[in-house]
């Protein structure tokens, strides 16, 4: 009995460590397939539950992210009916193609996440604070626009501009690192 509890505690520690380390990649994968934040959050939660339930089946030393994303993929498919009326939901062929691309790019996306923190530092203060306000939990474009003194239309334009800037910055930073 004591041995069983000890084993469960070890398992829990391992799971927490793996999820803590990889949750960003799993969420990003889900968000790419279900690009509406509340829906993606729901699926992440459901996925986390399944991961916990099936963690005994995970073979230590194999690719945890690939295993977890496979679970997430099936949760997305299962949730199709639930989200059928959502504004964005790809047809099955596109969903499968995007899922494969996202899975193939998993490691690269980690590098991009790291590079993003450097690129954020290069934004001017006003743009950075506005952007991060937009992405704060519970805050939307309207709140971020009000806080930065922008009109709503200007806020959308600014977000487009800043995100494109960051996308390019991250790409060029990684290219530069690869060249050196």
């Amino acid at each position, binding site marked *: 009995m004591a041995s069983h509890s000890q084993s469960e505690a070890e398992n829990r520690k391992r799971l*927490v460590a793996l999820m803590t380390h990889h949750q960003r990649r799993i969420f990003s994968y889900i968000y*790419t397939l279900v*690009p509406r934040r509340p829906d993606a959050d729901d699926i992440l*939660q459901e996925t986390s539950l399944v991961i916990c339930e099936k963690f005994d089946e995970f073979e230590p030393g194999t690719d945890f992210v690939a295993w977890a994303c496979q679970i997430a993929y099936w949760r997305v498919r299962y949730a199709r009916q639930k989200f059928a009326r959502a504004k964005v939901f790809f047809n099955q062929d596109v969903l499968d193609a995007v899922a494969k691309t996202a899975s193939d*790019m998993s490691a690269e996306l980690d590098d*991009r*996440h790291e590079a993003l923190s450097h690129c954020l530092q290069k934004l001017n203060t006003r743009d950075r604070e506005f952007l*991060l306000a937009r992405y*704060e939990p519970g805050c939307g474009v309207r709140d971020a626009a009000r806080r930065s003194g922008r009109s709503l239309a200007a806020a959308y334009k600014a977000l487009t501009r800043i*995100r494109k800037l960051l996308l390019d910055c991250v790409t060029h930073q990684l290219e530069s690192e690869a060249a050196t």
Partner: protein
Amino acid sequence: MSLSDRDILELNELCDATVEGTLTAAQRVRLEQLLADSEDARRYYVKAMDLSASLGQYAGEMQMEAADVPSSGTHLWESKSVRWAALAAALALTFTWWLTSRPTDLAKSISADLPEYVARLTGTKDAVWPPAAAELAPGDFLRRGQRLSLKSGFAEVTFDSGAIVLLEGPAVFDVTSAWDATLLRGAIKANVPSQALGFRVSNRAVEVIDIGTEFSMFADDRGGADVLVLKGEVEAMPSGDEDSEAIVLQANESRRFARAGVTVSEDPAQMRARFSARVPLERQSDSVRYVQWSFDELQGKISPAKVAGFPLGDYHVKLIAPSPSVRHTALVDGFRQKALRFEGLSFARAEFPGLSGNFPRTIAFWVKVPNDSPLSGAYSMVAWRGDADQLASRPVHIGWNRQPTEGPLGAIRTDFSGGHAMGTTPLRDGRWHHIAVIFLLSDDPTAPVQVKQYVDGRLESNAVTSGPKRSVRGNVRANDNLSGSDRLWLGCRLGAVGPKKERFLGEIDELVVWDRGLEPVEIVALMDGHMTLATQRAD
């Protein structure tokens, strides 16, 4: 299939709409089509969505840091006996929390906010401005976010993107950026040339995205607006309803947009008549002063200049090459006839009285940069030394960006004391690109330098990133003369007293320096080789 610039522009817009939840049904179909057809498109989409996922995490991290939450993840988990189900829920709910132990310093900034001028008032007719508002005159620059309240008469605004809006008073009009505006009340006619594709005008009832056309918009006090397309087509997106879809309006079609919905305009004939007559505008008299080097011939070391309006003098370009044999191969096939080639050792200069002074200028030329050009070949296509107070006697360099942490590698970049301007299109592709840099100084040393960069006729940047402002005078010995002054330098980097060792690699053709900031339509005319057209305007 690799993505073209146009594909990227479209994908970026679709990804943005996806992130913001504003994707229309038509856009969703288009996005699916792109994603189904192209692995490159899928990769771009995945990167864009991942960026937003990451931003959500960083923002959550910032918020949690501000709230001073526990910084150690292990502590939270080890302090409780958590059941598996609760653990799963908690893992998801604390999605952003785990990042709190990862240090990122987002507080630092390398740039400061500067006023950004995004448009100009280019013409008026009987314009009456409210007493409390500043009197505006043709030629005045308009700031990002500047509101124009026109009591009566007409005013023409030319955006840096190239879009031209004729405003009829009474009207209230916000200049939002070089690419968009807001009509709160009144009537406008917008003319959007191809280089300004995507220019938008919005108001409370509708957002109109121009896809290469001419249209009118009439906004009333009740928040409604009529849109009439005069040429081409526009995409009109009703505001206020998340589920509404964009309406594509063709030439001669009109719609009324209001809170109650979209209806047919009541009197399109009257709307058409309102802007059908040509409005003779009063404009700032534009000078015809330029120096042009076509580089079609090289007489020994000399390539002659064509001078219009500037004081008489010898403005020819002198090529400084390491040997006669190099000089003999410096003329190569160019964009038009011949061009000057810089192979990594040569540079050139032209005497240009007054160039180091304060006069506004546009520097335009064609450039070809090898696609394997090393970072050492970036400095510089064109340079001059500014002796104006705003430039602290430092050089101005137009080259391509070799600092990937500051912007796209290979993009057009203008450096000056106090900052730099950064473009977006990588130029290292072995093809000819037309570059136009508008560089505007002021007699006020505290006023910001304005730099607007155009590549192939399209606006790439109209803001500068501020940087340190240093003077070189402290580094200059008493007996040094500042030999870089009042000279135009090609193919080299400038130091305090002349060229440094860095050289530009590439070819330059059809260089011209004007003594004013050209309008976007004039830059396109220059691209087409029409020096005289650059001085003409079609009202």
